[in-house]
């Protein structure tokens, strides 16, 4: 009986160790780093660069619409937030008049990070693609309808 209990305890410990390994943070986002470009079917290009991670933080910038659209990103504690600000995606762009919007982190997995608003109305997913590419999904739900925009960023 003691042997069985000991074996169970060991299995639980090993399981806990495995859990510790899968708990990723912002420092695992090395796959996101790089300069890339995505092209729409119409040939319009969106350039994007991410740098870091430093201290669990990644920053980025995007450039599109013939240079008239500039966007800035921070993946880390909320931009302008308090000392223990929640971790997530802060974005400033011309649509917000360069004011910072924030979407909390939902999950970090190996080669994938997901941000989602508390009401589930907006979800942003970045994930590694073959050849050092990065995919991005932007999903917005309103009036029961979900709009999904996909980007496939290829290395420059």
């Amino acid at each position, binding site marked *: 009986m003691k042997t069985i209990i000991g074996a169970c305890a060991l299995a639980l410990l090993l399981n806990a160790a495995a859990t510790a390994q899968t708990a990723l943070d912002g420092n695992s986002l090395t796959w996101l780093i790089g300069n890339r470009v995505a092209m729409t079917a119409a040939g319009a290009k969106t350039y994007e660069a991410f*740098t*870091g991670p430093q*201290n669990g933080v990644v*920053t980025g910038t995007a*450039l599109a619409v013939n240079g008239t659209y500039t966007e800035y990103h921070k993946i880390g504690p909320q931009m302008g937030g308090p000392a223990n600000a929640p971790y997530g995606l802060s974005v400033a762009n011309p649509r917000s008049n360069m004011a910072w919007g924030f979407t909390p982190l939902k999950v970090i997995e190996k080669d994938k990070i997901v941000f989602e608003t508390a009401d589930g109305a907006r979800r942003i997913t970045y994930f590694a693609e073959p050849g050092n590419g990065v995919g991005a999904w932007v999903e917005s739900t309103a009036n029961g309808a979900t709009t999904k925009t996909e980007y496939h960023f290829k290395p*420059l």
Partner: protein
Amino acid sequence: MKNLIAAALLALSLSAAGALAQAPLDGGSLTWMAGNRVHTNANGGKIYLAFIGPVNGVVTGTVLTTTTPGQTYIEYDKLGPNAEGKYGLTVASTSTNMASTFTPLKSIEKGRIVFESADRASRTTYFARSGNSVGAVIERKANGTTTITEYDFRPVN
């Protein structure tokens, strides 16, 4: 004699046209800036810098580093026209609580761009280095003293 004068005029004309065609660079020439790079401080601390573009003469960038343990310095850059259409360097950083500052363009040369404030108290220079590296020199004048900070951003492997 007429032939000599005509030849001299032609030579001058070609020289001027060639010089004019080569000299006036704009933001579209900043391809050497694009890339993902890192500067290493003497103490081993790293400063990451990424620039993308140019797109229609515009380049954007971001800088990321750790200051004190647990604190990050973040900066966002735009090389391009400001709201008034004047070309220059717009910078927002955690040092200014993300408020933007604008420094007008002073010059663009091959592999080099310089921004300088109207009072000349602030000058920022980026320049191409060998191996796809980018150098940066930040000069600040205050109370008769000039502080120069130099960076050597090398490609991230």
